[in-house]
C-alpha cells in the first residue's frame, strides 16, 4: 500500500516536471517569435505588417524546427553515449565526432571540387559524410573506446588529439585548395545556430526525427545496458550488437546535426546531467525525454534572449561557458571519488 503511494507520488512528480517543461518550451517559442518580429519592428520603429511578419516567419520557422529537433537529438544522443560508455562526462562531440564532419567536408571538396555534384547535392554529400563518420566511429570504438572505457582522461585526450589532427589537417587542405572551393567549404562547415544551414532542413528533419525516435523506442535496452556489460549480458542482451547499433545511430545523428546546426559541444553534457539530477531515475524513457526538452529550452529560450537583448555574445559561447565549467566540476568530483 505504502509502496504504491510512493510510486504514484514519484510518477506524479515526473509528470508535473514534464508539464512545466512543455509550458516553458511553448513560452520560449512565443518569446522567440516575438523577439524576431514585434521586438525588432519596435526597435526599428517600423510597423509590423502582415507581409513582413510572414516573410520573417518563413525564415524563423525552419530555424525553430532545426533548433528543436537538433537540440533534442543532441541530448538524446549524449544520454545514449553516456550510458554505453558508463560515463557522466563524455559526449560524442568530446571525442571528436563533430571534427570528423569538418574533415569529411574538406576532403570531399579537395578531391572532387566544390562544383561537383558530390559536394553540392545535399543528399549525396550527406550520405558520404554520414558513411565516413559511421566507419570512423566504428574503428574508433573498436580500437579505443572498448578497451579504455574506464580511462576517462585517456579518452578525453584521445578526443582532443583526434579533433586537433583533423582540424589542422583540414585547414592545411583548405589553405592549398582553390579559393572558390575554400569559400564553399567555409560556408558548409561554419554552421552555427545563428547561421543555420536551412537549405537541408527538409532532408535533415526527417532523418533526425527518425534517429531520435529509434533511440527512444530502444529505451528498455538502454536501461539494461546501464547496468554494465556483465549484468547486461547476463540478462540476455546481445551486448556487442546493441553497442554497435547505438554507435551507428549516434554517427548518423551527429553527422546530420553538425551539418544542420553546427557543433554544440557542451549542450548535450548540460542537458543530460540536468535531467539526471532532476528526475533521479534510471529509466531512459524519462531521461531521454527530459534531457531532450532541457536542450530545446536552452536553445530556443537562449536564442530568444540573445535576439531580444541584442546581446553581442552568441548563444553557443554562453552554452560552452556553462557546460565547460560544469565539466570541470564533474571531472574534479570524479577524481575525488577515486
Amino acid at each position, binding site marked *: 500500500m505504502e*509502496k504504491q503511494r*510512493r510510486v504514484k507520488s514519484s510518477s506524479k512528480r515526473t509528470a508535473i516536471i514534464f508539464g512545466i517543461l512543455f509550458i516553458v518550451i511553448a513560452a520560449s517559442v512565443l518569446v522567440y517569435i516575438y523577439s524576431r518580429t514585434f521586438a525588432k519592428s519596435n526597435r526599428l520603429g517600423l510597423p509590423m505588417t502582415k507581409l513582413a511578419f510572414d516573410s520573417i516567419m518563413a525564415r524563423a520557422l525552419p530555424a525553430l524546427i532545426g533548433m528543436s529537433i537538433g537540440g533534442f537529438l543532441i541530448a538524446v544522443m549524449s544520454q545514449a553515449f553516456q550510458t554505453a560508455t*558508463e*560515463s*557522466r562526462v563524455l559526449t560524442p562531440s568530446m571525442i571528436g565526432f563533430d571534427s570528423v564532419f569538418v574533415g569529411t567536408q574538406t576532403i570531399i571538396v579537395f578531391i572532387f571540387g566544390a562544383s561537383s555534384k558530390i559536394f553540392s547535392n545535399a543528399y549525396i554529400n550527406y550520405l558520404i559524410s554520414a558513411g565516413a563518420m559511421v566507419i570512423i566511429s566504428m574503428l574508433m570504438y573498436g580500437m579505443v573506446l572498448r578497451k579504455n572505457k574506464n580511462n576517462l582522461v585517456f579518452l578525453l585526450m584521445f578526443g582532443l588529439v583526434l579533433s586537433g589532427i583533423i582540424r589542422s589537417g583540414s585547414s592545411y587542405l583548405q589553405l592549398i585548395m582553390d579559393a572558390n572551393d575554400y569559400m564553399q567549404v567555409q560556408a558548409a562547415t561554419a554552421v552555427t545556430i545563428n547561421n543555420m544551414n536551412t537549405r537541408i532542413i527538409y532532408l535533415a528533419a526527417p532523418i533526425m526525427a527518425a534517429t531520435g525516435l529509434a533511440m527512444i523506442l530502444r529505451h*528498455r535496452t538502454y*536501461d*539494461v545496458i*546501464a*547496468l*554494465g*556489460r*556483465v*549484468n547486461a*549480458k*547476463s*540478462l*540476455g*542482451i*546481445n551486448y556487442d550488437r546493441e553497442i554497435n547499433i547505438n554507435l551507428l545511430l549516434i554517427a548518423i545523428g551527429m553527422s546530420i546535426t553538425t551539418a544542420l546546426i553546427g557543433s554544440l559541444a557542451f549542450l548535450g553534457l548540460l542537458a543530460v546531467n540536468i535531467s*539526471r539530477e532532476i528526475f*533521479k*531515475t*534510471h529509466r531512459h524513457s524519462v531521461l531521454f525525454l527530459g534531457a531532450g526538452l532541457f536542450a530545446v529550452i536552452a536553445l530556443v529560450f537562449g536564442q530568444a534572449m540573445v535576439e531580444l537583448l541584442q546581446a553581442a555574445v552568441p548563444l553557443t559561447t554562453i552554452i560552452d561557458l556553462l557546460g565547460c565549467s560544469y565539466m570541470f566540476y564533474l571531472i574534479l568530483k570524479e577524481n575525488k571519488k577515486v
Partner: protein
Amino acid sequence: MIEIKDVHQSYGKGKVLDGVSLRIKENAITAIVGANGAGKSTLLGVITRILPMISGEVFWDGFNLKQVKSREIAKKIAVLKQTQSLNIRINVADLVEFGRFPYCGGRLSDADKAKVEQALDYMDLQLIRDKFIDELSGGQRQRAFIAMILAQDTPYIFLDEPLNNLDIKYSVEMMKIIRKFVTELGKTIVLVLHDINFAAAYADYIVAMKDGKIAGEGPVLDMISPEILNGIFDHNFHIVEHDGKKVCLYYDNESRRKHGGYTHNHDSEHVSRHGDEHAHNRGDGFARRNDDKKGRRHTV
C-alpha cells in the same frame, strides 16, 4: 547439464585457458579455486559467454551455447561479477525487476512482479526496497544483486568472487544463502573463490586451476589435502579437521613447526581464533614471502 569441452583462451601471448574440459555437477556448489592468474575468472566468463573464447565448446543440455539466443541463455544461466558500484540512480526494487528482463523485455506482467516480490522476500530486502543502491552497505548491495539473479529464475548461477570486499560476517551470510539456494531451490551454483577455507567449508565440489589448466577436481573432502593443495598454490598447507569439515592452515608454517605444530581435531575456538589472528598479523609477511619465492624461482 553444463559441459565444457577443450576451451582455449589467451590474452596476447600468455595462455589463460589451455584446453579446459569440465562437467558441472548438478544441484551442488562447485568452487573454482587457484592462485591469481590461474584463469579462474576467465573460465567462468567463457562458460557464461561474458568473455569470448578462441576455441572450444560449451554445451547446455546438449545444445551448443554458441547457437542459442542470448535471451534464452539468460533464462538458464545467470552470472554476477564481484560487488559492483553502479553509475545510475536506481533503487533496490527496480534493480531486482531487471532480473525479469529475459522474460518480459522490461514490461513486467503480474507474474513477473510476483517473482520480484518473492526474490525481495527471500533475500530479506523488503525493508530497504526503496533505498538507492549507492546508499547501501557492501553486504546489502550484494544481496540486492543476488536478489536480481534470483528473480531471473535460472537453474544455473555463476558468481565471480562473491565475497570480495565483504566483511567476514557478510561473507558467511552470503555463503549460507548460496547453500540455501542449492538445498531449498535446487539450483546449481559455480563460484570463483579466493579463500580456500570458504571453499572447504561451503562447497560440494572443488575445481582447482593452475596455469590455465585444471589441476584437479573432485568432492571437497578429497580435494582439501596437503598433497593436492601444495602443488596448486606453491605453498605448504596444513590441514586440520573440525566438525567433519577440513580447515586449511597456511599462515606461517615454519614457526608453527617450531612450536610443535597443531594436532588434528583441535577444539574449534582455539583453531579459529588462532587462524584469524594469523590472518591479520601475518598477512603481509605471507605475501612478501611468496614474492621472495617467486623471485628466487626466476633467478634459477
